[in-house]
């Protein structure tokens, strides 16, 4: 009966109730979006870093992966020593550079030619990020169609490219491209040039969407770059042997390997996934604080909305509530009924807000993912069921408690006085 009465009270002014529910839904949507934003980037970044199973990233001293164009010399020796460490399972070295790429028609023919002028062979030219990797251990891309370049090549003849490059050059898998070292095609400067075949299309995990990218065997890229690339790498990712489920020991082992690398090789910095996440968290602290402030604000707005509506409703029904008390409804009954009204508003607002929040999060994520310079696989809003339910439960409790003040007032109503005032009024 109390539920019926609470429903009935809310139905009495349907438009007012609907507006309050909508307001509460917006507050709930904002709250859930802020929770998704606050935890989403961190989780997404963690997932991105751990997706290929490498816990350590070895970069030139004092740099972050591909933060600068700095490279590490003596790469073969470095990689060999890393691979020789008993706790290191795999090492994936890579060398990044910028190249000019032109479409050279669909001749399907391979081979290289050095010293040609790009202007005579390319219909369309674009700069692209070229990544030398060892295809058998690489953790930079995943093949979508076709295949990875042949691992053993020390001459640049095969590349796997991303969709952005294919689109820029209107090329397809199997086409031949002309790749020139990073000199300006617009200035018609000649550089080392190779004719390469596209062996497949890949999704590059750490490359921003829309940025043309390609990958070839590390040795081929090193050779292609000449002195600038000889025995050099930009990054080596290392996977540490781990025992399944033993997170504590695995973290300790990773940290020990990281320290060993930094001690042994003075020219590099070793960054663990955890350290990287901490660094990212530090950089995202502003976002997180903003998200928490906006989330807290949405909670306050929700509470104020419910308090206002329920107070208004109680004030309008003082006579009615006095009669309820007079005919034998206990204080607790009135308290329950009014708080139920707050709870019902909360449930309706939160249900609507959950859907609204997910839709807006998806929309905002699409916009933010287009932000230049960010990896394609980095999400800003990540659904975390636990965080979402916790925040929504918090809003539900808050909205129920928001009805507590007017409910308490209603339950404390002096029945005779209220009836007298009603009679006069």
């Amino acid at each position, binding site marked *: *009966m109390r539920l*019926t*009465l609470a429903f*009935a*009270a809310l*139905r*009495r002014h349907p438009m007012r109730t609907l507006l309050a529910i909508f307001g509460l839904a917006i507050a709930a949507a904002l709250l859930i979006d802020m929770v998704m934003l606050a935890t989403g980037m961190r989780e997404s970044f963690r997932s991105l870093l751990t997706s290929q199973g490498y816990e350590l990233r070895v970069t030139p001293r004092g740099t972050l992966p591909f933060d600068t164009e700095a490279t590490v010399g003596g790469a073969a020796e470095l990689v060999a020593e890393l691979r020789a460490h008993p706790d290191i399972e795999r090492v994936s070295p890579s060398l990044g550079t910028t190249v000019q790429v032109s479409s050279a028609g669909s001749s399907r023919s391979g081979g290289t030619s050095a010293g040609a002028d790009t202007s005579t062979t390319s219909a369309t030219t674009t700069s692209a990020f070229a990544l030398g990797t060892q295809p058998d251990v690489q953790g930079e891309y995943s093949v979508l169609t076709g295949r990875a370049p042949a691992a053993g090549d020390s001459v640049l003849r095969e590349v796997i490219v991303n969709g952005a490059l294919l689109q820029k050059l209107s090329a397809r898998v199997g086409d031949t491209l002309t790749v020139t070292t990073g000199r300006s095609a617009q200035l018609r400067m000649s550089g080392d040039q190779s004719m390469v075949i596209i062996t497949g299309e890949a999704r590059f995990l750490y490359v921003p969407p829309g940025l043309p990218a390609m990958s070839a065997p590390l040795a081929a890229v090193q050779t292609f770059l000449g002195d600038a690339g000889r025995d050099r790498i930009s990054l080596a990712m290392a996977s540490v042997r781990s025992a399944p489920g033993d997170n504590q020991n695995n973290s300790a082992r990773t940290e020990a390997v990281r320290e060993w690398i930094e001690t042994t090789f003075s020219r590099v910095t070793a960054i663990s996934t955890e350290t990287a996440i901490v660094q990212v968290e530090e950089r995202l602290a502003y976002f997180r604080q903003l998200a928490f402030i906006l989330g807290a604000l949405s909670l306050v707005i929700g509470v104020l909305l419910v308090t206002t509506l329920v107070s208004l409703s109680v004030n309008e029904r003082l*006579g*009615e509530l006095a*009669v*309820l*008390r*007079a*005919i*034998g*409804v*206990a*204080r607790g*009954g009135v308290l329950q009924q009014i708080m139920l009204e707050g709870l019902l508003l909360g449930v309706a607002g939160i249900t609507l807000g959950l859907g609204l929040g997910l839709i807006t999060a998806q929309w905002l994520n699409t916009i933010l993912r287009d932000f230049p310079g960010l990896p394609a696989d980095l999400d800003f809003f990540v659904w975390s069921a636990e965080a979402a339910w916790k925040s929504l439960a918090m809003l539900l409790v808050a909205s129920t408690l928001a009805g507590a003040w007017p409910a308490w007032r209603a339950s404390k109503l002096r*029945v*005779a*006085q209220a*009836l*007298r*005032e*009603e*009679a*006069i009024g």
Partner: protein
Amino acid sequence: MTRILIEASNVQRRYRTGGTDVHALRGVSLRIHEGEFVAIVGASGSGKSTLLHLLGAVDAPDSGKVLFDGNDISGLTDAQATLLRLHRVGLVFQRFYLMPTLSALENVALPMAEAGVPTTERRTRAQQLLSFVGLGERASHRPTQLSGGEQQRVAVARALANKPALLLADEPTGELDAATGKALIELLQSLNADGLTCVLVTHDPALAQSARRVITMRDGQIVSDTPVAEHVVVPTAGDEQTANAASQPASQPASQPASQPVSQPASQSASHPSSPQPSSKSAATAPVEVTRRPSLTPADADAAFGAKE
């Protein structure tokens, strides 16, 4: 003489309203026996509603005592007073105060739900009570779909829901036209005839004559407490007998049989509230000899109240 249901002894009640102290009751004492039909009459502000609230445990006196069934209810806690009102007192208000978003049936069932009556039982009983007051066919209607008279009858049915020992009606005809008001008073008379103790507050002395005893109040005091010599048919607007209602036998409605004398209030064993099948009661002893009418049947109620206004 039947036992005393309510006794007030030197009851005083002050309250503050609009910045001024109002001495609403100044040492009121009275006794109401089981089965009585008492009208409390007086001008606005004379303290009659305050007295009614004290008798029904809606309010508590500042000093003095109110005994209900021999128990002092002046110092009850809120929870105790609430329970008393729920189970022993039925209240009818001038403005009906039905829950506007509930159907007539749900309104009647409300006190039963509060008392923990199982859903099926309370729905059945609510339907019976609505039939008893002539609204069996309008159980699913909302208050806004009912006329003033019908709403007040729903309020009476609600007041009877938990089979109270005492029915308190505060200006129950105040918002009704004369004919509808008359029908309502006849309903109260019928309930009283079935043994229910009724206390009616009205500012209309003529209406008060429908009771068996009239208490007149002025400035927070009882200035007269007199039995009604004859049971009077409630006058409708324009009835010439209004002025003489207290002293002369009035004409009965066409549907009513001739009045018969009784010597005391209907006994407590009368069946009215506990089983809403109206029945005629044997004569009982009253403080004064009054003329009583038989119980109101659903058919009577329909005839008396007519269709929705």
